[in-house]
């Protein structure tokens, strides 16, 4: 027993620095959730401020925009989840039909690229090209006599602008896993199908899609954990008070209540609500992924 402990000692030492950093910067904030039940007094700090019970939560429910924010978060995150599956799967299927390697590689290289740019860079670009007066997008719409659309300033358009631009950034990256799954399909299956008289379309429906299905199920299930992640970085850099009605989400609300208005208790309460719902959804998604596809995180 003793010898085993000594043999394991290096392992503990290796983990120790990371263990401590995570303890301080991940677990102390978890304990800091008590702030949701406090009225923060700066001199007393996170753990010693006066207890107010559920007051912060009651205040949160009385805020006029709370329901809108909750709905916006679900709607935007939901649309992104659907687009995040449908577009990459479709694109991977089409790309898989193109046989020239150089062509495939070039297309891939181009469509992955926006994934690696920050929302600051992309927002800088989007604010310019989507401008109703000077942007190139409205310039092109003007050619076909469509009146200028205020993509970022009109609350009817804003959620769709978010979904579309998020798809632009992420769909290329999303195709990678499906392309990998497609290259893993045994060519003998296609030969057999072809001998049985299946045309290309039939082969896609009967061979390709079923082979892709486990990956589609897995990615869909795993994305469930993002049901309240409508994309803080994107929304924060593109929204404005005109579009709060349809564009304000939980994370941006927490930011404004907490860091702009210094109402720490309420902001922590709103954040806690999000963390709890996300935790349940992520837990559920991992459980489902494990049951359905035998997926394990580690």
């Amino acid at each position, binding site marked *: 027993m003793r010898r085993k402990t000594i043999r394991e000692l*290096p392992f503990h030492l290796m983990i120790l620095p990371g263990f401590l950093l995570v303890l301080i910067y*991940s677990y102390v904030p978890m304990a800091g959730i008590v702030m949701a039940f406090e009225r923060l007094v700066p001199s007393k700090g*996170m753990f010693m401020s006066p207890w107010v019970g559920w007051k912060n939560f009651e205040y949160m429910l009385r805020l006029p925009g709370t329901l809108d924010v909750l709905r916006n978060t679900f709607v935007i995150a939901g649309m992104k989840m659907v687009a995040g599956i449908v577009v990459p799967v479709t694109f991977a299927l089409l790309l898989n039909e193109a046989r020239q390697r150089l062509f495939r590689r070039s297309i891939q290289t181009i469509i992955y690229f926006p994934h690696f740019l920050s929302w600051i860079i992309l927002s800088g670009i989007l604010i310019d090209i989507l401008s109703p007066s000077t942007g190139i997008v409205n310039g092109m719409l003007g050619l076909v006599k469509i009146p200028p659309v205020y993509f970022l300033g009109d609350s009817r358009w804003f959620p769709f602008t978010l979904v579309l631009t998020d798809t632009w950034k992420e769909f290329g990256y999303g195709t990678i896993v499906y392309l990998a799954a497609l290259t893993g399909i045994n060519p003998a299956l296609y030969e057999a199908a072809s001998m049985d008289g299946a045309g290309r379309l039939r082969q896609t429906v009967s061979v390709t899609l079923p082979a892709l299905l486990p990956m589609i199920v897995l990615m869909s299930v795993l994305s469930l954990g993002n049901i309240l992640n409508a994309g803080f970085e994107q929304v924060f850099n593109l929204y404005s008070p005109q579009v709060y009605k349809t564009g304000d989400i939980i994370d941006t609300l927490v930011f404004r209540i907490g860091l702009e208005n210094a109402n720490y208790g309420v902001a922590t309460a709103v954040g806690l609500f999000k963390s709890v719902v996300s935790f349940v959804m992520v837990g559920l998604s991992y459980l489902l992924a494990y049951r359905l596809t035998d997926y394990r995180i580690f």
Partner: protein
Amino acid sequence: MIMHIQTSISRRTFLAFNYVLLTAVAVACLLPLVNVLAISFSSSAAVGAGKVHLWPVGFNLKSYAFVLNKPEFAKSFLVSLGRVAVGVPLNMLLTILIAYPLSKGSREFRFRNAYAWYFVLTMLFSGGLIPWYMTIKLTGILDTFWAMILPGAVPVFNVILLLNFFKSLPDEIDQAAQIDGAGRWQALWRIAVPLSAPAVATLTLFCIVTHWNAWFDGLILMNRPEHYPLQSYLQTVIVNRDLSLVTAQDLLNWSEVSDRTSKAAQVFVAVIPVLLVYPFLQKYFAEGIVMGSVKG
């Protein structure tokens, strides 16, 4: 599949249509970037008149000269390089040191599962923005360089990718090393890490891009704009347009270099480092993602 080349008309129409569609989508992905790049090289008059589409009109480098001569821009660029230089090696060191013991079975390392859950739990649940901010304040690193390094020093997702990669290495090599008298540390640095070079390279590139692109921590954890990394600085001048940061010199320059051309130039200077690592990323990252999501 070569034996089943079909040349039916419908197939050929489909293929032609497919090539056109794929090309169109890829071009559409690039157009916004090309448009803004063209603006950055154009004269402010041509941009103001709406004449610039995909090619610069009145080509000049004034916007770039303006951006590069801005002391705030240069300073924040250096802060960003600094956080990459310090943050990425620390990220990788911690990732490797945590991933290796966790890649062992629980028979070899009894606390393996406990530790693994300890780290994974932080991906599933978090204290949220405000407690995170208060903790950083509590540890006394607010408004210092370390506020951008230490809180994110352990990239748990990368740890999991790497531990799965370590797991896929053949056990026999490790056992042979043990018999030859190699200690745990030697086995890690002399065997496991060199054998995992592609995975380590991929994760290093991920960390570089993450640090380079990070802006939110700089924005809220640094009190003075002089300490902002580049992306936080750009957030204030491009996205948020904080007019308090506009200097008299800027106003003077705006007559010659318009707001739009200078913003476009700043965007592209910030993209250059990503462009430089992109070829390497390209080479490794498909492998990297796949190893994370579809592992055996």
